[in-house]
């Protein structure tokens, strides 16, 4: 139970802090959330700066503890997060690094690290969400290409992506998990249509992807044919306990801001509100400790945090929604004004219990894989 950092880690933190302090004032203003090309340019520009300063691979090579420090410090300093580079840096990139050929790594990894190319994730389909293995988008081999036809949905930032990590069915006869392959789809290929979907927050964060006889070179397949399910799962736990580090730092800062605002507008006199904020603060403090434990486990085993991930996400996603409800209580009637801070975030937070595995699916995972309860519907 040691919570102290080594001298080297503290040095890494100090150098990073110094660099952030020098770099952040030179950043361009944040783009409008509705301006996708602007957001892409901003996010890629930030990744380029990280790359040039030697922090470009931090998500890939650094030890879990250094990654924790990196995410903690960048969030504290108010630096941007991965944004449009989420899939490239945290999923497709690591998948290619782990499962790709020499040639594939050379082709795709550099541009992700330099912020030159953006990836999106084409997994979910209209009829395959939680039950992802039921996906039906077909890929039929024709010479040196796959001909892909089908539909994807909820594809985040598809509008500005260059590549899509696509799960397709290559063997409809095989058992569900064994007939799937992983393809890198160029988003400008003929037959790809992107139709933005408007979220309840008003902006277009994700899109529908229509694929009509799109030809994808066989060389764009990562891993063996029909082995795509395993290829994908290998990197699902890639973040090794550090997923949501920045978010928890941000939530703890928000709690401080809420307390300040409530003291100013008099709502702090309401004991129920104070206790509500106190309870949330205790929860986020504990979530931070849970991250430190998961990272310690990942660091020691070199592997998957296992137990930690689903347990963490279950509490975090609900706690963060409650946090914005508390923010609304602090704001009073101003909670209805989308021009005020926190209110758009409150809307966005409604996705946290759905995206990346719904809470119900997380509970199934905890119950079946950790507690060993029998499978069932």
């Amino acid at each position, binding site marked *: *139970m040691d919570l102290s950092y080594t001298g080297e880690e503290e040095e890494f933190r100090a150098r990073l802090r110094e660099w952030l302090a020098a770099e952040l004032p030179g950043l361009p203003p944040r783009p409008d959330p509705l301006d996708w090309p602007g957001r892409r340019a901003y996010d890629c520009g930030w990744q380029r700066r990280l790359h040039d300063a030697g922090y470009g691979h931090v998500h890939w090579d650094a030890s879990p503890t250094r990654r924790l420090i990196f995410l903690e410090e960048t969030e504290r300093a108010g630096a941007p997060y991965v944004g449009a580079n989420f899939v490239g840096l945290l999923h497709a990139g690591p998948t290619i690094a782990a499962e790709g050929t020499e040639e594939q790594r050379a082709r795709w990894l550099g541009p992700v690290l330099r912020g030159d190319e953006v990836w999106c994730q084409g997994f979910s389909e209209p009829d395959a969400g939680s039950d992802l293995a039921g996906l039906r988008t077909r890929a039929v081999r024709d010479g040196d290409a796959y001909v892909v036809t089908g539909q994807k949905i909820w594809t985040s930032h598809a509008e500005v992506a260059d590549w899509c990590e696509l799960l397709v069915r290559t063997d409809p006869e095989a058992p569900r998990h064994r007939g799937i392959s992983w393809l890198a789809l160029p988003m400008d290929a003929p037959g790809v249509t992107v139709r933005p979907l408007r979220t309840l927050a008003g902006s277009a964060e994700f899109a529908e992807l229509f694929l009509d006889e799109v030809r994808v070179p066989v060389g764009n397949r990562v891993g063996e044919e029909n082995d795509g399910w395993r290829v994908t799962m290998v990197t699902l736990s890639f973040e090794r306990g550090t997923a949501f580090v920045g978010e928890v730092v941000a939530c703890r800062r928000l709690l401080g801001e809420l307390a300040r605002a409530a003291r100013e507008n008099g709502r702090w006199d309401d004991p129920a509100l104070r206790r509500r904020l*106190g309870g949330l603060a205790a929860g986020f403090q504990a979530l931070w*400790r849970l991250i430190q434990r998961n990272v310690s486990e990942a660091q020691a085993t070199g592997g998957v945090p296992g137990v930690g991930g689903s347990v963490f996400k*279950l509490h975090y996603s609900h706690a963060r929604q409650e946090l914005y409800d508390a923010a609304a209580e602090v704001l009073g009637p101003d909670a209805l004004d989308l021009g005020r801070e926190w209110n758009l975030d409150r809307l966005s937070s409604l996705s946290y219990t759905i995206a990346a595995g719904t809470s119900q699916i997380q509970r199934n995972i905890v119950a079946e894989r950790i*507690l060993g309860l029998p499978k069932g519907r």
Partner: protein
Amino acid sequence: MDFRLSQDQTDLVRGVRELLAGRFGRDALRASVDSGALDRGLWKELGDAGFFALRLPEADGGVGLGLPEAVLVLEEAGRALLPGPLVATQRAAGTVPGAAEGLAVVTEVSSEGLIPWRDAADVVLGPAEGAVPMRSVDPLTPLHRVSGTLPAARPETVLLTAAEQVGTAAWCTDAAVAHARRREQFGRPIGAFQAVKHLCAGMLVRTELARAAVHAAAVTGDAAEIAGAKLLADDAAVANARDCLQVHGGMGFTWEADVHLHLKRAWVRAALVLPGARAAEEVAAAL
């Protein structure tokens, strides 16, 4: 940073768990419930094993361990529902003669005006005059109540009580899961039903969160972090005991099943020091 238990800490947990399983297993627990008395022989054995002298420096004849180890030991005590004023006697080791060795039973007046095990104790710390007995909800924690000026809650007492709550939360999770795998209805184990499965998953989440909070608070010793840990541990213990009771069905409502003993003890520990509203206020004050 390595927030996992060290090898020594893991060994300590195993040792305490084995000791308690051997010396205070289910039969002994139920015998204590029936008699309602504190087993002085067991108390002495705990003393011999270093339970009370755990944090006393080695130079003073103690074991010389720290708050993190104490938290691990108290979690095991909580899991086993070990009765008696454990935290107060541990606190008294080194100052009250016999406490360290398990020869004396020491209790104290809590910040909420409660005195557990007053009649069984050799020494009562704090302003205990005029204490009146209560009909305690917990068959294994006799209680007295006093009013007047009360001592402030000591952060260590709060933390160690929270550690016992984590033990209860963990026991309830294990018991519910074991029952859900064994008990069959509609032709399958009830643990195959999501309504049951999801209760169990929620219990594990509460336990892990509270445990991370308690362990970290033991390392930092920070008062607000301790208050937060107590808040989460109280919630984990009480909510898990209720869910465990629910998973047991009619059996859960019997005197025979142990789950009510955990729920009642969890209520006692929650009310004894820094109860929920106070803990939440303390955390909020630090914001």
